[in-house]
């Protein structure tokens, strides 16, 4: 008999419930996105086989296209930039319960504005052009976003429908802009003249990484701070959870919704301007290529958390670049990238719900 018998047996201390729930929440925060990626890639593999490809080979090509070298990494970072900015905008809007799908319109109008400014104003130097474009593109995006916001906040108009209709209106404005006022007379398809050299965003020497990337880098902690530490961040969470509770506590529901609509619009406008001055250099219909929906995937996969959005944008941007490479080299349709993205969000939704139920 050991002496231990004399004193009461020391039971293992009961796990602190707070620690346990924190551990579980960490597991789900990390585990669910990983599960989603695994399921998405598995479905992608099935499609690759259906398309007559070899999943191992296709995924190797994809990985190489996303991370294979400095050029690829540069493309990944520049591709991530608009996704991060728009994803942050969606995160802010969705937190307020404002379910816009209008980012395509904000992005397009930002690109139109940037092209119009640098092609028509003799600003002459990027030190002048960049602030002017940043402000005008942000204002243009905020105006388009603000329309859906005001319609929702003041008149109760369904923002899903209004923001989507606005996307189409902006698209036709884009079509007119590249056909008429900004048309390149020598272009085969409707497109603008190339932007002047002074207007192009500066790049890190020897790479494709332009300074727009740093705008996204700066926006991430800024939005995090906005959500965590400001009055707007607090109000938006309450409004998103329960507008009636918010109103009862003296928070202006309408103003909060409109503010989040303006911010998400401005972020989309800046994203469009960065893409135009940093990567495309010409306005064309190709600008409007579905990034509005892709960024929804980014916002949801990143769990509406600014840092999560960066990771999700890397994944989605890599997937997009990868699936384009696979289409070029192995004749497997690039749309598998879109399908994989959708499967990933559906998996996240389902897994979240299962975890929620188990509690």
């Amino acid at each position, binding site marked *: 008999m050991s002496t231990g018998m004399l004193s009461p047996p020391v039971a293992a201390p009961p796990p602190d419930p707070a620690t346990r729930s924190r551990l579980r929440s960490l597991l789900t925060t990390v585990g669910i996105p990983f599960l989603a990626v695994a399921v998405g890639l598995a479905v992608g593999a099935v499609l690759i086989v*259906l398309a007559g490809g070899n999943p191992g080979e296709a995924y190797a090509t994809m990985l190489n296209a996303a991370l294979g070298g400095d050029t690829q990494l540069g493309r990944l970072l520049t591709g991530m930039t608009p996704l991060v900015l728009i994803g942050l905008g969606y995160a802010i809007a969705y937190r307020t319960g404002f379910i816009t799908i209008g980012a395509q319109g904000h992005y397009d109008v930002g690109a139109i504005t940037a092209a119009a400014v640098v092609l028509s104003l003799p600003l002459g130097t990027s030190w002048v052009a960049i602030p002017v474009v940043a402000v005008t593109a942000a204002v243009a995006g905020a105006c388009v976003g603000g329309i859906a916001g005001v319609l929702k906040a003041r008149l*109760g108009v369904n923002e899903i429908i209004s923001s989507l209709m606005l996307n189409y*209106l902006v698209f036709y404005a884009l079509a007119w802009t590249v056909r008429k006022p900004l048309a390149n007379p020598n272009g085969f398809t409707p497109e603008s003249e190339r932007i002047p050299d002074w207007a192009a965003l500066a790049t890190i020497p020897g790479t494709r990484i332009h300074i727009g990337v740093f705008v996204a880098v700066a926006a991430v902690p800024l939005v995090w701070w906005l959500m965590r530490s400001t009055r707007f961040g607090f109000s938006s969470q309450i409004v998103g959870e329960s507008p009636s509770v918010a109103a009862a506590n003296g928070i202006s529901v309408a103003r909060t919704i409109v503010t989040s609509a303006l911010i998400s619009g401005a972020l989309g406008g800046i994203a469009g301007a960065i893409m135009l001055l940093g990567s495309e250099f010409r306005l064309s219909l190709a600008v409007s290529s579905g990034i509005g*929906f892709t960024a929804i995937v980014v916002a949801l996969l990143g769990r509406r958390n600014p840092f999560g959005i960066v990771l999700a944008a890397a994944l989605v941007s890599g997937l997009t670049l990868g699936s384009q490479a696979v289409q070029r080299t192995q004749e497997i*349709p690039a*749309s*598998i990238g879109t399908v994989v*993205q959708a499967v990933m969000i559906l998996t996240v939704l389902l897994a979240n719900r299962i975890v929620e139920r188990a509690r």
Partner: protein
Amino acid sequence: MNWSDVLGAGALVPLLTAALRLAVPIILAAAGACLAERSGLMNLGIEGQMMVGAITAFVTVYYTGNPLFGAVTGAVAGLLTAAIVGYLTITMAVDQIITGISVVILGTGLASFLYLQVFGMTGTPPRIQGSTPVDLPVLSDIPAIGQIVFSQSPLVYAALLLVVALWWVLSRTAFGLSVRAAGESPEAADSVGVSVPRTRWITLLISGATAGMAGALVIDGLGFFQDGITGGRGWIALGVVILARWNPLGAIAGGFMFGLVDAFQLRVQAASGGQATSVPYELFQAMPYAVTLVAVVVTTVGFARNNAPKALGVPFVPAR
């Protein structure tokens, strides 16, 4: 440009005929969505279900040459796509809005994948022969109306009959009563023995099938397929549900307004013959979307009482 080509007396009947043809996909998808929303379920995935329906129908018609088969396979494909929405939102009670948007992305990607899978990336895009109009005996002899309504393709008749049938089911049958109960007060419906999940599953699958068939009607009218071919018609249909105040018959009026604007803008473009006009044709192309936006705003503001089902978008978990 000669405006009498577009607006003259002789142009009116052809304009209205085209308007109805262009309206029918939206009317059909909107009527199905009315039914689903009346049961409390927001099927935001309609645009995706339309895309999957459109590509399925296109492949079917390309290989069989029969537009009716295309409508059926398109409807089945839309129904299967809607089943994904149903499993998540009804069985698992996941958020309906986010699920719907995800299914739009999924449907768009799948349709594009299938198209390239079947037809490859080469050469001239494949085309199909759309269905041909059939004059209904006697009815088509009615002046004007006969030409507009009763000289359409069999698919148009089938779609319009379906819409009327949906209205009848919703407003005149016991099942329709459970649908409305599930959408207004699911707890009360549950307490009197209506299975809310079962009711919502049925209306959702019907909505998916109508959306898929609507996709089939879109490619039947155009004769080709490309990415984004439905051009936001699924979203417009959701706007039409609001205009229709959640009544399938109202969807006929709301959808027809869209068709009229669409037919008008197509005619203006054709009449201007691609020549430079003072008015940009993009303005006309944008009209259907602008009209939908304005109409949704006016309907939302104009009625004192919002007619939306009270439990719309709210997941229902039966108590065990």
